[in-house]
Structures are given as structure tokens and as C-alpha cells.
């Protein structure tokens, strides 16, 4: 095969000196620097690039830009492989490897093309109608459909590439660097504004890049030279940032704009190590200028999807920008003057243009005149009514059409490509994302920017201004206005002269008639999802009147191209089928991203250890060096257990728990939330946020408190100590510390601003070493001589200050294990030293470090709840059997009134009880559902669930806590817990399994 046999020898914006080797679907090819993968494929005569999603019909390159529905490729192999990239946007690099995404086993022989033969059985809504019943089976069907309709593969391995994120502010952000965007940038830049100019392409210039060598001029310069001048001037401005290869993908509230910059994608293996693959920009712009251009609208005609049929503007881009022939015999089909530029350029390049088929009865503009002068046949009042060719188009059938019907016999024109144009749709996506309202213009059948609520302006083709002179004028105007609104004076800028030919009016045609019997010849509206005009009409007949429902039912615009080429046509055909005006039907909502953005870019560097902050206690290093297995509690790393050699979790937890009950256990409790509360009204604040009374708590004493939301549901619990008359130290659960502090701040700032009280987090400032067990007092006595440890002098629920292990400490005599316990709080920096001192002095008592697992077991034996495990935001104090802590005397506290609502008082609420399994060895699953009658057929009534479950070495049997409907009224009853594959009989019991009178912890 001749290398690049469709490549022209001269011209275009490629570097013929730089040859790039690449592979596509396993074959080797060659292209040039400046190519996209698509242009290089066209240069090599590769027409068939993929298969359609549903019918697996052969499809070719359709466009030259981001709107491409067909040429979707899987780029690269292995971990960095990426699916569904548009070949029209992939810049060619040496060594590139790509494959079509939607065909198996190969693009030329696709087994699923069988679907095409039975297409009449796969109409709109087919998936819904066929597979949604019976409902349970949808999951199974879906898997098979996905495999068949597969859209590329995601890599199984972690993405090896690096992605950056950065924030920026600017006065004027300009989306699009075509003629309008460049003029806007020059205007705003010369006025002194801070400008960001972003364009998705590798170079600025937009459609000017597709001008031929003797094409349009601006200010007497060739268009591309004018672009180079403008770019050079902008690059010299200190306040202007130029971002080529950068897509403005999202327009969010308050002019917050998302940009994705492809930093090294175009370099392939030559990408420097220090650069990220892509960079996400989060920009806050004072003013936004939208200069996003327009997307060519396809003509919808019978058999319009054969490879070789492409947009006229794309054919022109391949010819002029990339120096490749889109075909050897290119039929042009249009309803407007612009496609004549394609015909003229093709003709000038020596490519046969058998005819321009023009739907207009009498095209009389200057461009058709020039075509006539060039000897190109114009078939006015004609349309393409059918095509032939299997893996590429080989002929078109052309017939006279008038008033939406075929008006004469068809004749056959041989061709290997059809360049067609139905006009241009302004790219209003970003404008609409930013909540701008669209308006419809009948004459050209276009949606245009209407009212905006954000600080933006549209200019050029995206504003419906297609002539070059108007693009330049609008760009200049909005650039200056945007700069002025951002506080920058008038720029010095004259409008450059242009000589572009004027266009005669187009004729809007949404659907070209066919002479083929309906049902025989399909006209595709959405190429990626195989939606035909017939499907659209079927949806209308079946009552889909809302455009959003229509879209989902037919899947129009639901592909990865988001309907860039199909949505407006789909809406227009739907409107016509419904007999309504297009604006009455409206468009679907435009949502970010404008084009797909890699997940990696959204994640940025927030991966692995950077995903969330990791909090470690001051004693963490000791735990690590002693083999602790850690668990995440909120952001904290907490030792879960400390296995010895050969010991599993259960054995370790058993050993640790027994040590705490018989000798001494030691726990790092530094993660418990600590809030320092000070002020004259500190006690009053506690009165309001806790269910019990605090005014009379003596200095030096502690009290347990339960905190409710205003809905009466338990929110947090913990022990609070009175350090002084106006000074308290509140402890919270580990995971809730920030929430409780925010809760106190909210009430004191919003509802009770007059209270004299302040609070601050003290969690990080203190390390907490908790020693627990019958020998705890003996150990503490060895480490301090500062205070009397006798039960009378230092009673349960009190605290003392003094020197422990050589450093100042606050020692709280409180217990979560049910054993005699002391919590020694020291400055964080002394935590490790005090812990080590305890370990050394405690050796003779068999001191044993224990983790959260043993702690949970020990407290469960005592029936102490863990908020968030035994409660779930629907549990009141009464549900927990904790009425004893709810003050009857206090007139008010947060949540009090809700405790007397009918719903919180009713019977049938789930309440906390204990459960014993009949077989003491069986440990229930936490979360297991409880039923009263196991023989009922599903759906049976669930009356509760297990919240905590352990094997208790102290009791030598399993224990569980559960929330069960009217649980306390069911004492002694046998219920049934659902476990995988079986039900387990359980007996309802009191939720306190050990030392119910608390003699051990008070001792």
C-alpha cells in the first residue's frame, strides 16, 4: 500500500518533515506532525473506523472536531489505556496505538452486526419494553447488553498518569480562540485586563485554520498569519494567559469555570517526567466571553450513515488544514452557501466534485456563482434520497425534491464521499450550562443565546454571527465591554478589514425526503446510538411529548458525544411529528462537561494517602512498633488490636479483654473529642445541650451526658468534667468531635448570642492514656504521689490534677470498660513518655495494651452504647432505656419537646435489648435482621436488627445488642436472627451482661 495515499503533496498545517509511525486496529501507518489520528487515518485511506452502538453498522469519520460521533477509539494499552476518545481530537504522536471501541472480533467483521439484520425488532425504547419486566431480571439482561453494546474498556490497573489541579482568578475568561475569541482577547488585553484565553485545539484560530492558502484575509494578511500576529501580541502581554489544548468544560454558578488542559497527551512517550498528563483549572472570572463557535448540522437523509459521508466543513478541514483528500470523487450536498466553499476548495485541489446537490430551488449567491464559473454542476432543488456501498459509500441517488417530497425520478451519481451541510448550530452549550436562556430563530433554525443571569457575553458564531467580519466586530465589542465591566478602560483597537464572500440565505430542511418505501431505508439522526427518524416518530406516536423523556426513550444524544450533531435535528423532527413549533418542544438541558473529562483529572493529586487527612495520636509510633493492626475511625488511625505471633484477631481480642478484666489493660484514648468550654454561662450551655442537669455539678466532678438533636434523637454522648466554676472540659465520641463543636457554636451564635460562653477544640492538645482493670490503682500509685487515690478521696466520676510520671496531668476516674479506670490526660508532647512509663511500671501486673475491638467488647458486656453503632439517628433516650438521664425538672433543653411528640411516645418503636443466641458459640452478624416468625414467606415483617455482637470471654458465650420493636416487652421471648443461609434462634434479655450494679468500676 502506498504510504499516505490520500495525502496532498503541498500546503496545509502539517510538517511533512516529521513522520510519525502509529498503529490502528493492529496495522501500522504513518502520519505527520500536525495530524490528528483522524486526519492521519483519512490520509491512509482508512474509512471504516468503528461500529455503531446498537446495530453495529460500519461507520466512518464524520467530523473533524469534538462533535465526532463515530470515530471513537481506545488509546494505548495496559494501565494507561483510555476508552472512547474521539480520533478527531487525538493529536498524532510517534508510537501511538489505537483501536476501534465498538466491534468484535474486528471492525471489518463484526459479529453483532446481526443486530442490523433484525433492526425492525430493535425500535426506540426496545431495552425498556423488553427487559424491564420482570424487574428482577433487568440486572441480568443489562450485563449481556453492556457486553454486546460495549463502549471501550477501562483499564483494570490503577491509572499510572499524574493529574494536576490549579486555581486561578481573572478579569475576563474567553472560551474559544477563533476570530471572535482572539479579537476579544486583544480588546480586553490591550485594556489591561487579566485575561485567560482557552481553546480546545492545539493552536488558536478556530475555523481560520481550515482556510486554503489563498483563502480569507484579515487586515490584508492571510488569515493564519493574522492569527499568528494576534497570538504573538497576546503572548507578549504580561496579564494574558494563553491556554491552547484546553477545553472549557463547565460553566458553573457565579462565573466559576472548569477547564481541562491536555498538557502532555500530544507527546506520547516523549512527555517529560515532570509534567502532569492533564491539568484541571478552576477559574473564578469576573467576566466571561463565550466565543465557542458553531457545530455543523448534518442533513438527515436516507442511508446517511455510510463511511465516506461527512460534514462539509470537516471535508474542508481535512483538505486545507491537514492536506488530505476526503475522497477522490466527493459529492457535495447542502441547503446553504457555505458548503460551496468546500466544493470550490476540493475542485481547486483537483478532486472531482461530481455535483453540488442543493435543496434550494434557486441558489443565486456569489458562492454558487463561483462554483458555476469553476465548472461544477449544481443540481438545484435536488436532494440525496439514498446511497449505496457497504464498507464505504459508492454512489448517491439524487432526485428533485420540493415541498418535502420527492418530485421526480432519481438518478445515480457515483462518488466515494459525500460532504454535506444542513447549516450551522451555534455552540450554546456553555452559555446554557451557565443558566442562560436560549431563544429560537426560525430563519436559520438555530438556538441562540438569549437572556443571561451571569456576567457573560457571547460573540461570533456561537452567537449566530457567522460572517467573518461580524465575528471580528462582535469579538472586539464584547472584549472591550467585558474589560470595562471588570474596571478597565477603553482599548485601542481598530477593526481589521475582511473580503469574505457574502452568503445568500439558507433553507432550513430537517429531513430530506426519500423515494424508498418507509421502513426500507433508514435515516439516522443519532449516529452513536443508532436513532433513526423512524424511532423519533415512534416516540412521538407513543406519547413522548417532553423532550427530556424523548431523549431518554430513544437515547438521542445519550452517547459520549452528548448529541453534538444530533440533538437539534432530533428535536426538530420530534416537533414536526408532534405538530408543534420547535421552541415549544425546546432543547434538552445542557450539562457539564462539554466534552468528556477523565476521572483522573477530577481526582487530581487527592489519591491514596492524600485522599483524606490522616490523624495519628502522639503514641502512634509505639503502636506501630508493637505490631498494632489499625482501623480508621473518622480520620484517625486507631489500634484495633495488637496480635502476638501466630495470633488472629479473635484470640488477640480475647487476651486483651481478659487482661483488662483481671489485671490492667491500657488504651490510647487520645482520639476522643475534647472541647474546652469557658465562661459565666458555661454550665447553662450544658444545661441546654444535654438532657441532664449541670448547674449543681461540683468542681472536680464529672458527669455523663446525652446530647439530642432538636428532633429528640440521640446525637452524641460523653463525659464532661467541671474544671472550675466557669470552666468545663467536654468529651465527645471520636468521630463526632467536629460536629459537636459546630453544634455548640451554631446555637450560641444563632439562637443564644447573649450567652457568655466560648468554646474551642482541645482534642489535639492532649494525649489520653486510659488504664483499666483491678490493678489500675496500684499502677497509678507508682506513677504519682500528688494525690490520694483511695476510693473515698478520689471517687468514681471525679478528676484530680497533679504530676503523673513526671509531667502535669489531669486524671479522670471514669470508665468505659466497666472496670476501675483512670484516664490520664497529659500535654500531647508527653503522651508517648507517659504511655511508656505505664508500660514499664505495669509490666509486673501484666499490663496489656488493648485496641478498639476489645474496648467495644468490654463496653458491650456492660451495655454501654456507642452512638452511631447502637443508634442511627432514629433512636431516643427512651428507646435506649436511658430515661434516667433525661431531666424531668429542666424546663427545656435541645430536643426535649420532641420527646413528647406522638411519634416518639408511641408503642412499637425499636428499643435496645440484649440477645443471647441459643447456641452460645454462635456470634450474630452485626446488622442481622430480626423476625418473630421465621416460617413466614417473604416479604416478612422485620422487627429489628442487631447493632453490636461479640463473643464475650468473660461470660464465655456470645452476646449481642439489638434494636427491636417493643424490645423490653419481649424479655425472655425467642426471636430469630437472619444469617446467611440460615436463621438463628435468639432469646431477648437485658442489655447489661456483666456487673449490672457497677461495683467494679466504682470500687
Amino acid at each position, binding site marked *: 500500500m502506498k504510504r499516505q495515499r490520500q495525502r496532498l503533496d503541498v500546503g496545509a498545517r502539517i510538517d511533512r518533515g516529521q513522520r510519525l509511525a502509529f498503529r490502528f486496529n493492529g496495522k501500522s501507518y504513518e502520519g505527520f506532525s500536525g495530524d490528528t489520528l483522524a486526519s492521519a487515518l483519512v490520509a491512509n485511506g482508512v474509512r471504516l473506523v468503528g461500529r455503531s452502538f446498537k446495530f453495529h453498522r460500519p461507520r466512518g469519520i464524520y467530523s473533524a472536531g469534538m462533535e465526532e460521533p463515530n470515530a471513537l477509539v481506545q488509546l494505548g494499552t495496559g494501565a494507561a489505556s483510555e476508552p472512547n476518545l474521539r480520533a478527531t481530537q487525538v493529536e498524532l504522536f510517534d508510537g501511538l496505538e489505537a483501536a476501534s471501541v465498538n466491534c468484535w472480533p474486528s471492525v471489518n467483521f463484526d459479529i453483532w452486526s446481526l443486530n442490523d439484520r433484525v433492526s425492525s425488532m430493535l425500535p426506540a425504547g426496545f431495552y425498556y419494553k423488553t427487559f424491564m419486566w420482570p424487574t428482577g431480571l433487568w440486572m441480568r439482561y443489562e450485563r449481556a447488553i453492556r457486553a454486546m453494546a460495549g463502549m471501550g474498556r477501562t483499564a483494570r490497573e490503577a491509572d499510572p498518569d499524574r493529574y494536576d489541579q490549579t486555581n486561578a482568578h481573572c478579569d475576563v475568561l474567553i472560551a474559544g480562540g477563533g476570530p471572535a475569541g482572539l479579537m476579544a482577547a486583544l480588546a480586553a488585553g490591550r485594556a489591561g485586563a487579566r485575561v485567560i484565553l482557552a481553546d480546545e485545539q492545539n493552536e488558536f484560530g478556530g475555523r481560520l485554520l481550515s482556510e486554503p492558502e489563498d483563502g480569507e484575509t484579515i487586515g490584508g494578511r492571510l488569515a493564519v498569519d493574522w492569527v499568528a500576529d494576534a497570538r504573538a501580541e497576546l503572548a507578549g502581554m504580561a496579564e494574558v494567559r494563553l491556554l491552547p489544548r484546553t477545553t472549557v468544560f463547565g460553566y458553573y454558578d*457565579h462565573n466559576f469555570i472548569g477547564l481541562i488542559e491536555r498538557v502532555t497527551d500530544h507527546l506520547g512517550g516523549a512527555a517529560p517526567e515532570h509534567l502532569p498528563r492533564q491539568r484541571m483549572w478552576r477559574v473564578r472570572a469576573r467576566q466571561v466571553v463565550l466565543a465557542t463557535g458553531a457545530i455543523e448540522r448534518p442533513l438527515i437523509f436516507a442511508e446517511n450513515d455510510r463511511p465516506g459521508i461527512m460534514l462539509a466543513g470537516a471535508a474542508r478541514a481535512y483538505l486545507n488544514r491537514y492536506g488530505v483528500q476526503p475522497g477522490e470523487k466527493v459529492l457535495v450536498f447542502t441547503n446553504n452557501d457555505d458548503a460551496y466553499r468546500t466544493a470550490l476548495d476540493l475542485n481547486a485541489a483537483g478532486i472531482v466534485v461530481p455535483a453540488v446537490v442543493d435543496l434550494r430551488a434557486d441558489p443565486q449567491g456569489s458562492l454558487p456563482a463561483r462554483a458555476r464559473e469553476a465548472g461544477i454542476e449544481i443540481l438545484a432543488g435536488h436532494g440525496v434520497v439514498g446511497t449505496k456501498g457497504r464498507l464505504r459509500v459508492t454512489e448517491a441517488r439524487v432526485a428533485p425534491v420540493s415541498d418535502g417530497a420527492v418530485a421526480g425520478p432519481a438518478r445515480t451519481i457515483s462518488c466515494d464521499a459525500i460532504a454535506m451541510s444542513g447549516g450551522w448550530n451555534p455552540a450554546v452549550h456553555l452559555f446554557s450550562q451557565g443558566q442562560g436562556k436560549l431563544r429560537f430563530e426560525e430563519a436559520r433554525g438555530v438556538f441562540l443565546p438569549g437572556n443571561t*443571569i451571569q456576567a457573560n457575553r457571547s460573540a461570533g458564531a456561537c452567537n449566530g454571527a457567522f460572517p467573518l467580519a461580524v465575528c471580528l466586530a462582535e469579538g472586539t465589542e464584547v472584549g472591550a465591554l467585558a474589560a470595562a465591566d471588570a474596571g478597565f478602560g477603553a482599548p485601542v483597537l481598530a477593526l481589521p478589514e475582511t473580503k469574505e464572500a457574502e452568503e445568500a440565505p439558507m433553507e432550513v430542511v430537517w429531513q430530506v425526503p426519500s423515494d424508498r418505501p418507509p421502513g426500507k431505508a433508514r435515516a439516522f439522526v443519532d449516529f452513536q446510538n443508532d436513532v433513526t427518524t423512524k424511532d423519533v416518530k415512534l416516540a412521538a406516536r407513543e406519547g413522548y411529548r417532553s423532550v427530556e423523556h424523548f431523549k431518554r426513550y430513544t437515547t438521542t444524544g445519550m452517547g459520549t458525544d452528548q448529541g453534538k450533531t444530533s440533538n437539534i435535528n432530533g428535536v426538530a423532527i420530534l416537533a414536526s411529528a408532534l405538530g408543534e413549533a420547535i421552541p415549544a418542544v425546546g432543547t434538552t438541558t445542557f450539562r457539564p462537561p462539554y466534552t468528556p473529562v477523565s476521572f483522573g483529572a477530577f481526582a487530581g493529586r487527592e489519591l491514596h494517602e492524600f485522599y483524606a487527612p490522616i490523624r495519628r495520636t502522639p503514641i502512634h509510633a509505639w503502636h506501630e512498633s508493637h505490631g498494632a493492626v489499625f482501623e480508621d475511625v473518622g480520620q484517625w488511625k486507631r489500634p484495633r488490636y495488637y496480635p502476638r505471633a501466630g495470633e488472629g484477631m479473635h484470640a488477640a481480642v480475647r487476651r486483651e479483654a481478659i487482661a483488662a478484666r483481671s489485671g490492667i489493660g491500657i488504651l490510647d484514648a487520645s482520639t476522643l473529642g475534647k472541647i474546652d468550654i469557658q465562661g459565666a454561662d458555661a454550665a447553662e450551655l450544658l444545661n441546654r445541650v444535654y438532657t441532664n442537669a449541670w448547674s449543681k455539678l461540683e468542681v472536680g466532678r464529672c458527669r455523663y451526658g446525652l446530647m439530642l438533636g*432538636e*428532633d429528640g434523637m440521640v446525637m452524641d454522648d460523653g463525659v464532661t468534667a467541671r474544671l472550675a466554676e466557669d470552666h468545663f472540659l467536654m468529651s465527645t465520641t471520636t468521630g463526632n468531635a467536629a460536629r459537636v463543636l459546630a453544634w455548640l457554636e*451554631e446555637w450560641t451564635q444563632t439562637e443564644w448570642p447573649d450567652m457568655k460562653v466560648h468554646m474551642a477544640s482541645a482534642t489535639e492538645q492532649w494525649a489520653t492514656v486510659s488504664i483499666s482493670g483491678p490493678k489500675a490503682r496500684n499502677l497509678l500509685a507508682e506513677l504519682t504521689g500528688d494525690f490520694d487515690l483511695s476510693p473515698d478521696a478520689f471517687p468514681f466520676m471525679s478528676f484530680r490534677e497533679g504530676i503523673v510520671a513526671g509531667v502535669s496531668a489531669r486524671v479522670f476516674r471514669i470508665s468505659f470498660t466497666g472496670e476501675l479506670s483512670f484516664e490520664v490526660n497529659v500535654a500531647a508532647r508527653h503522651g508517648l513518655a507517659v504511655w511508656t512509663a505505664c508500660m514499664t511500671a505495669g509490666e509486673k501486673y501484666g499490663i496489656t495494651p488493648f485496641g478498639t475491638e476489645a474496648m467495644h467488647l468490654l463496653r458491650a458486656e456492660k451495655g454501654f452504647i456507642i452512638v452511631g453503632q447502637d443508634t442511627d439517628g432514629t433512636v431516643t433516650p427512651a428507646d435506649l432505656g436511658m430515661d434516667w438521664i433525661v431531666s424531668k425538672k429542666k*424546663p427545656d433543653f435541645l430536643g426535649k*419537646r420532641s420527646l413528647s411528640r406522638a411519634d416518639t411516645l408511641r408503642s412499637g418503636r425499636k428499643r435496645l435489648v440484649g440477645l443471647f443466641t441459643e447456641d452460645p458459640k454462635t456470634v450474630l452478624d452485626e446488622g442481622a435482621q430480626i423476625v418473630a416468625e421465621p416460617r413466614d414467606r417473604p416479604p416478612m415483617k422485620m422487627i429489628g436488627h442487631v447493632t453490636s455482637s461479640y463473643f464475650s470471654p468473660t461470660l464465655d458465650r456470645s452476646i449481642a445488642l439489638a434494636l427491636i420493636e417493643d424490645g423490653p416487652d419481649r424479655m425472655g421471648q425467642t426471636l430469630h436472627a437472619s444469617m446467611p443461609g440460615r436463621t438463628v434462634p435468639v432469646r431477648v434479655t437485658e442489655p447489661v451482661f456483666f456487673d449490672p450494679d457497677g461495683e467494679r468500676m466504682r470500687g
Partner: protein
Amino acid sequence: MLQIACPHCGPRDENEFSCGGEAHIARPKQPDAISDAEWADYLFMRTNPKGALAERWCHTVGCRRWFNVERDTVTHTILRVYAMGAPRGGGGGA
């Protein structure tokens, strides 16, 4: 992402703040003296207007101060930022 002008710190991105829901819903002075329905109204019922809505916001990762914001729920335009405790003043809605 909204840009909210914290009265203490100046304009900051929305993700520095947390929204505390509708503003000017005073906690009943004597909860025990009102009916279940009245308490439920305070607890659960919000106006949810299409248009101007007064909300409480807190600059959570900044100064941690609460303040009121009047926001248009259709356009997300911020109409007014004012101190906690100040009256709502002009604008529609409840």
C-alpha cells in the same frame, strides 16, 4: 460553586462554608406550651420558595462565624449578606 462574601473574611468559595438551612425560624420560647403541630412546624416545615430565600451560612473552614444570606434559588444570585439577628428586610418570601 457559589462565591459568598463572608462579612468577616471577604469573598470565598462555597466549599469553605456550610449551609444551615432557612433563616429566621426562631426557636419557640416555651416549647412545652405549644402543640405537637406547632412544634413540628418549627422542626420540619420550610418555605422552599422559588426565588428569594433567606438562609443561614457558616464560614466553617474560615472564621467559623454564622451569618445570613439572601439567595435567589433560581439563579443562585446572592442578593444580600447580613448579620445574624438582623431583620430580613426587603425581598419576597416568608
